[in-house]
């Protein structure tokens, strides 16, 4: 975009690619955790399913379904990728770190550097909710102990 060059910070190539061709859409198999997230002000929805190891302290697989903007969908896809094979405590720390990054805080270390493409969102305060919806939903999924489809939604309002 010629006149809109600064939007490249927000809409990094990776974000647009993941929006158009997500790699982690679908449902985990089998489902050990199931959580839905919803952003009531814009209608974005995320449905996360997690497959954990036998003890339940390690994430084997994360999948998402949902509808939303490029930021929300790419954020979910990148999160799913970053979490595969991580233990639950580490994942919960990453939730916090992601939120800090949205407030302009530090980036992720290099093993998670792909998540840093979301950093540009921090300069667009009204869009932070889009990027964090999937992380809020993940936190709720990890904090519950049920694999049943949830009754309600986690909201990030």
């Amino acid at each position, binding site marked *: 975009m010629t006149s*809109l060059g600064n939007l490249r910070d927000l809409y990094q*190539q990776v974000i647009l690619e993941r929006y158009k061709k997500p790699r982690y859409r679908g449902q985990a198999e089998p489902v050990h955790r199931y959580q839905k997230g919803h952003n009531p002000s*814009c209608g974005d929805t995320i449905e996360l399913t997690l497959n954990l190891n036998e003890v339940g302290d390690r994430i084997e697989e994360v999948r998402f379904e949902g509808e939303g903007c*490029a930021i929300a969908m790419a954020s979910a896809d990148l999160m799913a990728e970053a979490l595969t094979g991580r233990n639950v405590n580490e994942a919960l720390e990453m939730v916090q770190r992601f939120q800090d990054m949205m407030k302009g805080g530090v980036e992720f270390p290099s093993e998670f550097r792909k998540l840093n493409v979301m950093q540009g969102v921090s300069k667009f305060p009204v869009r932070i909710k889009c990027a964090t919806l999937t992380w809020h939903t993940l936190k709720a999924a990890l904090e519950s102990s049920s694999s049943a489809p949830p009754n309600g939604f986690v909201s990030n309002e």
Partner: protein
Amino acid sequence: MTITQEKPLAANVRADFPILHQQINGKPLVYLDNAATSQKPIAVLDTLRHYYEFDNANVHRGVHTLSSRATDAYEGSRDKVAAFVNAASRQEIIFTRNATEAINLVGYSWGVANLQPGDEIILTVMEHHSNLIPWQLIAQRTGAVLKFVELTESEEFDFNHFKSLLSDKTRLVAVVHVSNTLGCINPVKEICAEAHRDGAKVLIDASQAVPHLQVDVQDMDCDWLVATGHKMCGPTGIGFLYGKLELLRSMPPFLGGGEMIADVFLDHSTYADLPHKFEAGTPAISEAIALGAAVDYLTSIGMDTIHAYEQQLTDYLLEQLEQVPTIRIYGPKNGRDRAALAAFTAGDVHPHDLSTILDQAGVAIRAGHHCTQPLHRYLGAQSTARASLYFYNTREEIDVFIATLKEAVEFFGSIFG
């Protein structure tokens, strides 16, 4: 460029709206979110300021000069609103906080007192949540049943379907005049006539109509009509309910408190005459007075002039939007059949992303479900983007909007050719 008739209107009025003359993200503001709220002319801003600088006092409560000035201005504003929508009597205009409160007033007063289990309320799938949720609540409370008029193929009010829903069980028809999402202008006069034939009452949500068209409640023959001040150049916190006099008389009070009483005893009270019966507590005085100033302002331009200008501008907007690749416009295609707004989607580009990109170019549009979630579900769209115009918008602004929209669509499209 050809000299068109509409050019002078926006050119003449833009100076009246200080907020329009600013830069957003380094670009001149192009405000195309008027269906959410309109901007306010200096005349309205000055009225607010003048009121607090010179006339501020409570209304109907004192004999001192300020109180009488405040009361005169407040009641004078009611006269203006009554004349604006051609009410038969000033007593038929009740000031409320907004359209939403006006609808709730009818629901909790008339609805609760009159609806029986099995009675039917006809709404449409295009209602704003403001004209849906109150009726869901009233239906739960009274046992009344909600029915919904669907859309025609051209995404307008389906009159035949409406007729098929009407029966002797229908007690109320509550319909939006101008849809804030489809932009369609519903045949409210015919709807009233048809509903009255079956003895049903009709409430018209004219929130998007009163700011843009000449609305005549007597000609329409509606039983109630609601509108909201902030979409018609007035401040927030003020709206109004119109109701036919005898009907309003027959309705029990909605909220109780000061202002709405005649005689108070410890165990019971008698109520003030209309309109005060429905205006409990200290009202939004300055806002009501400023709404009067907004009405004066709109009247000085002329609602027919505003409507004619907006129709030309809407035609231009639709014509230009249709040129944008992948665009899908919701609602009737002909600019003559719609009000000055267009909700749309652009292929893969999510409305939120569009809105962020447009905002970088100074263009304000709405993205989301515009408080018509059931309608979005009905249309199979999770959310849409919406550009909504007012009489101070120009073709040049539409050009900026369209050019940026095209860039956004190209930008997203370019990732995978």
